[in-house]
C-alpha cells in the first residue's frame, strides 16, 4: 500500500520587533510630523539625501548638516498605473512618479494628481499636496500627492542624472 504524499504542513511563525530607524531617519520622520522635508548633506560630495539613512552610499562617510528641502520639485520620471495594488485603491488609471524635490539629490516616489493622465510629462514642475495639518504623523505619507505647478517644464539637462 502506498501512503498518500504529505503535501504541506502549517507551522505558525510570529516574531515581534521594536524597530529603531536610526538617528538620521528619525530626524526625517520628526520633520514630516511638522510638515518639513529634511535631508542630510554628505560632507564629501555635497549631495543631499532624502530621506537620509546612515551615511553617503557613494562616499561611505557619515552625514554632516541637516538640510531642509523644498516641497516643490521636478517630476523626473513616471509610470501610468492601470492595475491597483490590493492595499491601495485609487481611481484608475493613475500616475506614480519620481520627484526630485528642490534642494535634494535623490528622488521620492509619489502619487501625481490634478492633471489628466495623458498630459503628465517628464520635467513637469510639481508641488506637494499635504494632508490636513491635524492628520500629520511621523510619515512621508503626510504628502498625499503632488500636483502641477504653473511653471515652465524643467530642462532635461537639469534632471537627466535622475532618470
Amino acid at each position: 500500500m502506498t501512503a498518500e504524499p504529505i503535501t504541506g504542513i502549517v507551522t505558525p511563525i510570529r516574531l515581534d520587533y521594536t524597530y529603531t530607524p536610526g538617528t538620521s531617519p528619525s530626524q526625517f520622520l520628526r520633520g514630516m510630523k511638522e510638515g518639513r522635508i529634511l535631508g542630510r548633506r554628505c560632507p564629501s560630495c555635497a549631495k543631499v539625501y532624502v530621506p537620509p539613512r546612515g551615511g553617503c552610499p557613494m562616499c561611505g562617510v557619515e552625514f554632516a548638516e541637516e538640510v531642509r528641502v523644498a516641497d516643490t520639485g521636478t517630476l523626473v520620471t513616471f509610470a501610468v498605473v492601470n492595475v491597483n495594488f490590493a492595499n491601495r485603491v485609487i481611481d484608475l488609471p493613475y500616475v506614480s512618479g519620481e520627484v526630485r524635490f528642490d534642494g535634494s539629490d535623490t528622488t521620492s516616489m509619489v502619487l501625481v494628481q490634478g492633471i489628466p493622465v495623458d498630459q503628465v510629462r517628464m520635467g513637469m514642475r510639481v508641488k506637494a499636496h499635504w494632508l490636513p495639518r491635524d492628520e500629520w504623523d511621523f510619515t512621508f505619507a503626510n504628502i498625499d500627492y503632488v500636483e502641477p505647478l504653473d511653471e515652465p517644464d524643467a530642462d532635461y539637462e537639469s534632471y537627466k542624472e535622475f532618470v
Partner: protein
Amino acid sequence: MRDVAVVSFAQSATRRDQTRNEVEILLPVLREAMAPTGLTTHDIGFTCSGSSDYLAGQAFAFVSALDAVGPWPPIQESHVEMDGAWALYEAWVRLQHGDIDTALVYAFGKSSPGDVARVLSLQLDPYVTGPLWPDAISLAALQARAFLEAGHDEKDLARVVARSRRNAVGNPHAQLSGDIDEATLLDEPLYADPLRMHDCPPISDGAAVVVLAAGDKARELCERPAWIRGIDHRIDVQALGSRDLSQSASTRLAGEKAGVGGRADLAELHAPFSHQELIVAEALGLDETATSINPSGGALASNPVMVAGLVRIGEAARRLSAGEGERAVAHATSGPALQQNLVCVLEATS
C-alpha cells in the same frame, strides 16, 4: 597556501542601541579599522560581510549596510547570512586566488529590537523541532544539563563566569565586567535550570571590522601582522538528539584541521554560555594553566550576535600584534548548542 594576516581590527562598544541603525553603528568602526592601514575602500580587493536580517527584522539590512563602505564605483563584494567569522573565511579563500592582496571583512548585528532567543529558534529544522519553538536559552540549558551529567560540576560554570567578568574589566568594549567570586555567583537563583542568568550572554548590538592582507602587503601595512596559520570550519548534524551535546565533535575536527595542536599563548573562544567554553576548550585540547582563555572576557561579557565570532578572531589578532603572545587560537560558533564551529590559528613574531 598563501600567507594571509589580520592587519587591522576595530569593534564598537556593545550595548542595546536604541538610537542608531546598523549603518550608523558600522561607519565609525569601519573608519577606525581602515585608518591605520591608510587604505580606502577602492584599494581593497574584496569585501565580505556577515549579518542576519532576522535580528533587527529588516529585510535586506545587509544591502543598506554596504552604504557604510561607499561601494561606488561598484566593488567586489559578498555576504554571508552568518557570523562575520565565516565572512572572514570566505575572504581568506578569496585571497588564496592570488590576484588580490587585501580584503575587508565586517559584521554587524542588532539583537535588541527583537526577542533574540526566539529569533534564533528559526535556525532549527522547520518540520519537527522548530514548531515547538524551543528558545536558544532553553536549548543551551539542555546542553548544560548533558554536560553536567557527563561528570562536571556547576562550580566549573561559576569559575568560567567569574574569570570572564574579571578579564572584561580591562576590555572597554565589554558590557558586563567586575570582580565577583564564585560563591556569590552560585548563590544566584536558577534561570533555565541548570543555568543561572550570568551563565547566559547579555543582549548586545554592535559591529566589528577586520582588514586582511597577504604576504608582503601585510608586512607593509602592519608592524606585527597576525598570520593565519590554519583555518577550518565543521558542522554537526542538525537533529539535536543525534549528537552528544556534552561534547563538540565539529570543534574537535575543525581544531585538528586548523592545526591547533593544544598549543596557544591565548585563546578567544566564542562561547555565549558558560558551559560551552569548557566544551570548546576540551575539544581543542586547550589547558587553562598553559593558555590564557578569553582574555577579553569573551561572549559572556558581550555578545553581539553575528559579530561575536569575528570579534574573537580580531581580539586574538590584536593581542598578538600588541605582543601579548606569539600563538593564538580563535573560535567562532553558529547554530543551536554549538552546532557549527570555526577554528583559526594565528601567529605573530617580531
